[in-house]
Structures are given as structure tokens and as C-alpha cells.
């Protein structure tokens, strides 16, 4: 049984004015409830690709459809009900005078008021651990917490598709664990999560599918066990990626593909039996 495609990218190219060809005929289908990580070299077109999902950029060639309808026909405000996009740089997103006002802005624009609005905002703040900072000015928060605030603003929109551009950047171990649990619970709730990341441990542990981009196209597409397996290393290296350390240890010991600490330890223990 295959779920419906919620993001459908067909033959899309995109070139920035006075800039490079960021996407070069890429195809990508994401199905409902999938947790997909996009990885690749700096400048390989990852951020450009996800900006097509909510209409911030429009494809030069090809077609992007969200929930079956072509984004070319739709306004950004309309797409915002379906796709929440967390920017890589939180300061491109934050503008309000308090943490509460920042998180309220999106759901307010969706028509929420009063207690319903307050409840959604409170829930989003609790999820990212900022419930004690509701009255704080966002710029009194450090970078890592501004990033969590931007994430809360996206979660408060309750969109069926959540796109996260480098959500773990600048986070400490607890912050990363928090983002991991948010990704897992979004997935469990049947929402579709697409994340761009350079953190291969986060990718291997929290996502069921990994797309490796190179030069504006897909170079690899599979499970973490597939894309971090030894036969794929040459392709990974060609896009300036490396498998996580447990995968290298597992390959050295000929244990098969062990992209996570847990899979490595299980493989080590399995050999005993």
C-alpha cells in the first residue's frame, strides 16, 4: 500500500538571475507521512529545491505539485496552509517584539483567535522548550533558541507538510535531541517531514529516506542503510559527504550497513550468537 504523493517535482530546473543553475531537471516524489532527509554539498541546490514547495521560488522549467495541485497556480499565502518552511537562518523569519507574538502571527493569519490561538501557541512553545520565554524579546534569546523559536512558529501553523532547512545547526546535544523527537512525533502524527541537514547522525537516526543531491539533481535515493552503505561511499564523497562513523566501523568489521550507533551495536551483538 503506497500513500498519496504530497510533493511531486517533475523535471524541475531553476537558475538564479546572475547566478548558477541551482536545479537541473530534478525529479522527486514525497509521499504522505514520509520522513525524508535531503543531503548534499554546500550549494548543491537543497535550499532552492525546498523553496519551490511553498511558492517562494517558481520553477524555471518543469512542474511542482503540492497535494496534487500545481504550485504555479497558487499564492504563497494559500500554500502556507499546507507547507510550513523553517529557514536555515532564523533571523530571516523572526520579526515580532515577543516570543508569543512571533509564534501567534502564523495561526492568527489562518484565522485563529482567543483561546484556540493561545492553546496552539502554548503547545508549540512547550514542544520546543520555550514556554518560559513567552514575553521575552526574540533578540534577547541566543542564536540556538531563536532557531527553536522559528521552529515553534512553523509548528503552530499545524501544516500537513513541514520542511526544515538545517534544523539542528547551532544546537547542543539536548537541542538536537529535542529536534529529533519533534521530527519523530510529526511523523507518528502522519505529517510529512522534509529536512535538509549536514548532520549525518541526525539524518541516519531520524529519517526513513535520504536523498543525496549533487549539481541540482538526485545522486542517491534510499534508506539510511542504503545511502550510507559502503558501495555508495564514492558517490557520497563526490558530493562532499561522509557516512556517519558507525557505518565506517561496521564496514571495517564487515557487518553490513550500520548507519547508526544502535544498528552497529546490534550487529556487534548479533555476531556473538
Amino acid at each position, binding site marked *: 500500500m503506497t500513500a498519496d504523493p504530497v510533493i511531486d517535482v517533475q523535471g524541475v530546473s531553476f537558475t538564479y538571475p546572475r547566478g548558477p543553475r541551482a536545479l537541473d531537471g530534478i525529479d522527486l516524489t514525497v509521499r504522505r507521512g514520509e520522513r525524508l532527509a535531503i543531503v548534499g554539498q554546500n550549494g548543491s541546490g537543497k535550499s532552492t529545491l525546498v523553496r519551490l514547495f511553498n511558492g517562494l521560488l517558481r520553477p524555471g522549467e518543469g512542474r511542482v505539485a503540492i497535494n496534487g495541485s500545481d504550485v504555479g497556480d497558487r499564492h504563497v499565502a494559500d500554500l502556507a496552509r499546507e507547507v510550513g518552511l523553517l529557514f536555515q537562518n532564523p533571523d530571516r523569519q523572526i520579526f515580532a517584539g515577543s516570543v508569543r507574538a512571533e509564534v501567534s502571527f502564523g495561526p492568527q493569519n489562518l484565522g485563529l483567535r482567543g483561546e484556540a490561538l493561545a492553546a496552539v501557541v502554548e503547545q508549540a512553545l512547550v514542544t520546543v522548550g520555550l514556554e518560559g520565554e513567552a514575553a521575552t524579546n526574540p533578540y534577547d534569546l541566543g542564536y540556538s533558541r531563536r532557531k527553536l523559536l522559528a521552529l515553534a512558529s512553523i509548528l503552530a501553523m499545524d501544516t500537513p507538510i513541514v520542511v526544515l532547512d538545517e534544523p539542528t545547526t547551532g544546537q547542543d546535544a539536548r537541542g538536537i535531541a529535542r529536534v529529533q523527537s519533534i521530527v519523530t512525533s510529526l511523523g507518528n502524527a502522519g505529517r510529512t517531514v522534509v529536512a535538509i541537514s549536514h548532520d549525518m547522525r541526525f539524518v541516519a537516526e531520524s529519517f526513513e529516506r535520504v536523498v543525496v543531491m549533487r549539481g541540482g539533481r538526485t545522486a542517491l535515493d534510499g534508506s539510511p542503510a542504503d545511502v550510507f552503505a559502503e558501495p555508495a561511499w564514492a558517490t557520497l564523497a563526490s558530493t562532499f*559527504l561522509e557516512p556517519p562513523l558507525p557505518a565506517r566501523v561496521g564496514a571495517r568489521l564487515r557487518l553490513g550497513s550500520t548507519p547508526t550507533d544502535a544498528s552497529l551495536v546490534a550487529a556487534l551483538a548479533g555476531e556473538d550468537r
Partner: protein
Amino acid sequence: MVLRLAGVGYAYAGTAKPVLNDIDLEVEPGRVVAVVGPNEAGKSTLCLVAAGLAPASIGGRLTGSVLLGGAETATLKPFEAAQRCGILFQNPATQLSGTTATVWEEIAFGPRNLGLPLDDVVGRVESAMAALGIAALADRDPTRLSGGQAQLVALAAVVALGPSVLVLDEPTSQLDPAGTRFVGDALARLATEAGTAILLVEHKTALVARIANEAVLLVGGRIERRGPARDLLADPTIEKHGVEPPPSVRIERAAAAAGQSDRLRGIDLAALESAPLEATALAGELS
């Protein structure tokens, strides 16, 4: 030039509670000292104070002394501090000048403002771009770079100033794994070959273990612990403070917890973590 902080405390303007307390820290020429710690520990503030930007440019209250090459930063004019110490901010977007049309000009912006002869400016720009592997970006518009490319350009712009002391706030946060390795190698070379003193704030502990001589754990604005980088990062208490141990340490512990340490005997995890992918694995390069 030595960077030395002695008994340093700092509170932001308009706030009573200091975010840094009793910081004693010394970075000698040719050494890399890393700062690790949880979110909001004061790491970015420490960078601003060490580089002489706080309180000189942003106000606030400093106690104790911050010495750049023996001179109190409090007595230095901003341009004097800038010539001694380069700082890379956490967010490259706040670093780029916004006044240049190409990456090349962006990197030349600082050396030009130092009033250097043109030949010298060109030499510095070219060597900074080569050191960070971004020669191919020379003609690109700095406002049209990916996050990681912008971070490399911002770092090159600081390196081109040729400061004796470098203060870096998460210089690899937006870089791919190979970019991180490349920047790590470049920083290690700056220290060993140019004798630059480097203060490095970094969450990527594998990078810290590989290039830092010493590491300090900053918690709640105080130095909680310090030592040789690998020793500190292998200390089990750092995890309680939100610092992720390097993958090699993590794997060793996970294997021990499962009673499987024996199976890892014969593999030098730290060496494997530091080494690029095995050349044999790359022999079959596809593209």
C-alpha cells in the same frame, strides 16, 4: 600575539546579571583552544568579549582584563583591536559587508580598508580563497550564496585580514562534512604554519578533538572544566552539560554498555574518525 582573559566578567547593557563570570583563559600563538558548552552558556558572548567588541562596540559592563598581545582591549581603538584580532560571527549573513558585487571584492574589502598596497591585497585574497577552497566562487554575488558558501566566504574575509588572533563562533555550523574537514585542516595550518592563536567555539566535537590543543567547558557563564581536548571530550560529565561527545567516544560507550567492547579491539576509533574516507572506497568514483 597572546590572547589572555583574566578574571573576566561581563553583563550586557541594561542587564544586571553577568553572563560571564571569572573567566581565565589564555590562547598562545600557534594554539587552538576550543570552547564547548550547552546553548546559552555564554559562548558567543565570550567571543565578543575576547575580540574586544564587547563592551567597546555594544556597551555593557566588563570586569577583569582582556589582553590582546599585552594591550588591554578596553584601551584599544576599534580598528586597533580589529587589526590584532579577527572574529567570525555565528551567522555569516551578519558578517558580509553587503556593499560588494562579487565574492572576490567581498574578501578584498577588509585588506583594502587596512590601506594595504594593491599587490598585497590581491595576494591575501587569493591565498585566503585557496586556503578555504572557494576560488571557484570568486565571481559570484555574495548575496546569492548558499548558507555554507556564505560561511566559507565570511571566514576567508577574516583570514585575509591576517590577524594574529582569530576568534571563531561555530565556523563550520552550516558546512557539509567535507567542508568541515577542509576548514578544520585550514585552521590547523593557520595555527601551526602562521602561528595564529585561535579561540574556537564549536559544537562539532569530532572537529574539536582533531584540531584543538586544549578545550574548556563553559556552563552558565563559568569555566566548569578544562584540559587537553581529547581528555575533556572523553569525560563522561560533559554529556550532563549538553555537550555531545565525539562519535568515537559515543560508539565505544555504546559497545561497552552492550558488552561488546572486545569486538572493537583493533580499531582505532579516534583515528578512523579523524581520517578522511578510505582511499580504496573512493576508487570507484561514479560521476
